């Protein structure tokens, strides 16, 4: 009996100590993230201008969203951005990591250079890339003309190309960070595997497919999750580079949320859009987890 109570007490004690360790962090999380998220969920069923008291409107906000062209345009643009940003960044990051994982003179310099965009101020990045993309005077189009393309795209001034310009800029900015993650992943692969494969006569491509890629699976999983989340909530780059324009060609969901909420003061409606964005990200992430689990089996 005494033994039992003492283990129960011990267990309770361990639990409490555990709680006390996470408590400081949890208070911050609860006050700054959890409460606002729950509030947003409630607000998405209300109408609120941030000043008068909120009014319950049921599903009206979601109905409005369903019938609003801006929402569909923003959703389509966000998906388009994600479909461009995720694979391109992934491939670029992995490619550079492979290149810079071999003994090479000045490898530190190259690694730093590639990581540099990530620590550069985003506003500066957006403004400078905007200038590079300038249709008449920008170096990109001057280069394209020099190699014989007479009608280079209008980039940020053209609704067909503006999202491509944003995607290219974001890939350039983010690839350094994910490259570092991949570099760390590559260093954990035991060299014996490659040696054994070589002895067995495996070529470079076979080694990459059968050793590198499978060994990097946990890293890739993490990178894909992070890229997905960051793609769907993209805001700052678009806001500075194109402000959603020309027209609505680069309007993304977070921008619509910002516009409807902060600018127009329709916090209920903008919370409803946030909820949709949240559900999309959640679903995509869950699917990725499921795929990861299956491939581990």
């Amino acid at each position: 009996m005494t033994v039992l109570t003492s283990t129960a007490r011990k267990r309770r004690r361990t639990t409490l100590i555990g709680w006390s360790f996470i408590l400081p962090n949890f208070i911050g999380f609860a006050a700054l993230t959890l409460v606002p998220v729950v509030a947003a969920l409630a607000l998405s069923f209300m109408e609120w201008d941030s000043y008068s008291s909120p009014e319950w409107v049921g599903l009206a906000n979601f109905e409005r969203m369903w019938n609003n062209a801006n929402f569909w345009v923003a959703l389509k643009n966000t998906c388009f951005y994600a479909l461009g940003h995720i694979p391109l960044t992934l491939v670029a990051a992995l490619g550079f990591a492979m290149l810079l994982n071999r003994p090479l003179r000045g490898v530190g310099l190259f690694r730093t250079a590639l990581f540099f965009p990530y620590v550069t101020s985003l506003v500066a990045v957006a403004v400078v890339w905007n200038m590079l993309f300038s249709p008449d005077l920008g170096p990109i189009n001057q280069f394209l003309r020099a190699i014989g393309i007479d009608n280079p795209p209008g980039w940020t001034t053209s609704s067909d190309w503006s999202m491509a310009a944003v995607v290219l800029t974001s890939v350039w900015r983010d690839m350094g960070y994910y490259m570092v993650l991949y570099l760390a992943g590559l260093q954990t692969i035991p060299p014996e595997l490659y040696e054994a494969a070589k002895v067995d006569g495996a070529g470079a491509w076979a080694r990459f497919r059968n050793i590198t890629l499978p060994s990097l699976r946990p890293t890739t999983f993490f990178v894909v999750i992070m890229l997905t989340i960051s793609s769907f909530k993209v805001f700052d780059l678009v806001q500075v580079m194109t402000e959603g324009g020309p027209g609505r060609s680069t309007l993304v969901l977070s921008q619509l949320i910002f516009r409807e909420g902060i600018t127009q003061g329709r916090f209920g409606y903008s919370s409803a859009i946030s909820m949709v964005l949240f559900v999309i990200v959640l679903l995509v992430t869950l699917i990725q987890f499921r795929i990861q689990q299956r491939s581990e089996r």
Partner: protein
Amino acid sequence: MTRHLMKGVAAVAALLMVTTACGGGSDEARKTADGKDILSISVWNYEQTPEFKALFDAFEADNPTIDIQPVDILADDYSDKVTTMLAGGDKTDVLTMKNVTDYARYGTRGQLTDLTETVNGLPKDSYLGLDAFDLDGKYYALPYRQDFWVLYYNKKLVGDADLSNLTWAEYAALAKSKTNGDGAEKVYGSYQHVWRSVVQAIAASQTGGDQLGGDYAWMTDQYTMTLDLEKAGAIMPWGTANSQKVTYDSQFSTGKAALLPMGAWYSARLIADKAAGKHDVDWGVAPLPQTAKGAGVKTFGSPTAFAVNKNARNAAAAKTFVEWASGEKGATAVAKIGIYPSFTNDAVLAAYAGVAGMPTDDVAKKAFAPDSVMLEMPVSDKSSDVDQILKEEHELIMSGEKTIPDGIKEMGDRVKNEVG
């Protein structure tokens, strides 16, 4: 074990007290160390907007017991920032109303103090732009500045052309004839900034078109003229100006453009920068070109105003300031640095014309006394939604993505469907 638990609880309680204490704050009026009442006023780009300092210095000289503390906000973020501040119950005493659309929103939400009684005691005829602050018979702000658009010109580049009575067709012909050079040496006949107002508000003020109406055929001529100038190479392409984030000042004050339709506020900047040796352009001011000859000078603009926050800590001093700034003394203070005030009488106008460097010739006089000044964007609860649509379609027309008729039709369709 209980001792540990108690310690933990105490620590958490202490932490909570610290964090919640930050949210508090007293409602009482604050004072400086030497006993002056502190009056906080929200402003934008304080360093680059000399009118604020001019007003505050003059007011403090008149009211030695009050110390003004500006709350400086980035101009581009001003609306969003003030909206967020007010939503959070901010207690800044005086709020500068950068545009009338935001004012209408704050006013109807009950975030500003009612100043109707004060307004009813004023000589309303002496105030330009006061009507814009009439929200169903109630006033929540008093204007201190009235901007309207004029045509700036570079005397050296324009030569002796008569600018006193231009139509837009004559303006276009002039701009084409004054364009020359190539590459980095190119001088454009005119510079038209990327804002939608440069086309749309001008057209609205001169054709009588309604920007909230949902039918925008009246913009056609102004768009045709603008795109034709762009095609002829007489103005910088919209796409270049937009992607390079070109500022109008960088074009006009460096002599890269001979003409520039712009707000009267730009005079103050030209004068101040010239005095500081930043440019040496010999510039003049002419009336905005017109759609038709002989119909008088029709232009557009917007008033800027001060309002008293409903949560003001120091409401009495705030009210004193708002009234002072919009009245003759405030008007004189801003007129003296080349800003056109809302309140005008002979003395104020003389102070304005007397600013060193201000053009005073007959053409300038005509430009500074327009026959009608239409509000840049009509005030309504739909204004900001319509504004967004008009801006997006403007971008598409100007970047050549849509033809003028298609763009104008799309504007109308979207305004009818999305704003309704």
